[in-house]
């Protein structure tokens, strides 16, 4: 019998490291399910994260509020004037909406499917500096599932990558591993938008066509081709157009509509597969 003696701990450590390497290689592929242990930890820690995060955001907000009081007074006056003007515009818009509905039915257009949303609070962000993920306080018990798109009123946020009963993990569009089929709104040229990590606030759109027509200031929306994100969701605005070193591929740098660093609430689209176009939900 081989006597392991003082090597026992060293061998245990090496075996642990080898197991971790194997585990990492296996989980590096796209997973459909998450481990029970993952669910348990996420569920247990999320309420505390939500409380601490809320407290921090509250303190931060309170400090910002104090600084903003005098500025807000002036803005308030200006906004009152604008609000009066908007009231008039609102009436005109209502008229146009009624007219639009009437014309739509006259032309025999199919009723577009409206999105249904679940509102969720952001409770935490990932602990490292390599990925861009956040935790929201809604899960499978609220009807959420993997790959559901997440948005705000400013535009596309990302997609759900992990779901447990009451909590879900969202991969942000700024994550290097993310990707969304997109279109230049004006020219309808297609491409894929992906993130550049936490360090860059800009997204990159790789255009499929070398001769694609894109200019600074063009709006970028989802194309709906990837089967995860419905078409027409606002992604951002082109701020720079470049070509690769060989001139074969065209890229556009996109300033996202969403301020990813300031996300507090998000909307999860629960019927993205069924929805045909983005309209206001419930």
């Amino acid at each position, binding site marked *: 019998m081989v006597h392991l003696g003082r090597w026992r*701990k060293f061998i245990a*450590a090496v075996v*642990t*490291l080898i*197991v*971790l*390497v*194997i*585990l*990492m*290689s296996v*989980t*590096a592929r796209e*997973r459909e399910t998450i*481990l029970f*242990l*993952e669910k348990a*930890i*996420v569920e247990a*820690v999320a309420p*505390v*994260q*939500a409380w*601490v*995060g809320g407290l*921090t*955001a509250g303190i*931060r907000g309170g400090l910002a509020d104090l600084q903003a009081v005098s500025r807000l007074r002036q803005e308030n006056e200006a906004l009152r004037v604008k609000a009066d003007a908007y009231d008039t515009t609102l009436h005109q818009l209502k008229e146009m909406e009624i007219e639009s509905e009437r014309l739509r039915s006259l032309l025999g257009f199919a009723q577009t499917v409206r999105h249904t949303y679940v509102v969720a609070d952001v*409770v*935490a*962000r*990932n*602990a*490292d*500096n*390599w*990925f861009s*993920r956040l*935790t929201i306080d809604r899960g499978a018990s609220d009807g959420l599932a993997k790959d559901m798109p997440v948005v705000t009123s400013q535009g596309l946020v990302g997609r759900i*990558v*992990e779901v447990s009963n009451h909590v879900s*993990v969202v991969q942000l569009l700024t994550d*290097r*591993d993310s990707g969304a089929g997109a279109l230049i709104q004006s020219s309808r040229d297609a491409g894929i938008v992906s993130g*550049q*990590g*936490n*360090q*860059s*606030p800009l997204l990159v759109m790789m255009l499929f066509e070398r001769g694609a027509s894109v200019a600074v200031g063009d709006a970028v929306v989802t194309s709906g081709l990837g089967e995860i994100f419905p078409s027409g969701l606002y992604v951002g605005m082109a701020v720079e157009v470049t070509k690769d070193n060989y001139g074969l591929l065209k890229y556009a740098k996109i300033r996202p509509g969403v301020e990813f*660093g300031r996300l507090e609430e998000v909307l999860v689209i629960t019927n993205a597969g069924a929805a045909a176009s983005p309209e206001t939900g419930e």
Partner: protein
Amino acid sequence: MKTLTDWLDRLSSRHVVLGLALLASLILQTAVFPHLAVFGLRPDLLMVVVASWALIYGPREGFLAGLGAGLAQDLLFGQYIGLFALSKALIGFFAGVVEGKIFRQTIWVPTAAIGVAVFLQEVVVWVCLRALSIPAPALGILTVGFPVALYSTLVAPLVYRQFFLYRGGERAKEKEITGGAGQAAVRR
């Protein structure tokens, strides 16, 4: 069952302190530090705790602290389970090897050692990401690893000092116990 009981017996109050420190770090890291991000980067408080612990208690404790912290991080957010457990356990172990070999009378030497540990952990993560073909910036060591290590050194003295004082308290208790036993033996 006997093994479990033995293990629980050996689980000292020191490990309860470590567990609580890691849990608090994990919560701060995910719920508070995002508000303190500079150019999208945050200090790695978990690694600061692991490295501080390793510098005080040695390689075995450093390895276990790194393994625990990394696994919690992986299971909480990771698509890639094992990535942070591997990197933190490995660097926790090597930080522990330095234990007793560095000058600890001034806070700046351990602080620098913790900064180096955070940097090396980011290097291991970057290498793993590249090896597994997971998108990671080509210059990630410079654009992520170095600034994160630098930022982490700001919180390192606070964490290290707490553990250092705790270890001092432990030593004082140990002395008291062994001293008391010695006196009792003399009386007998």
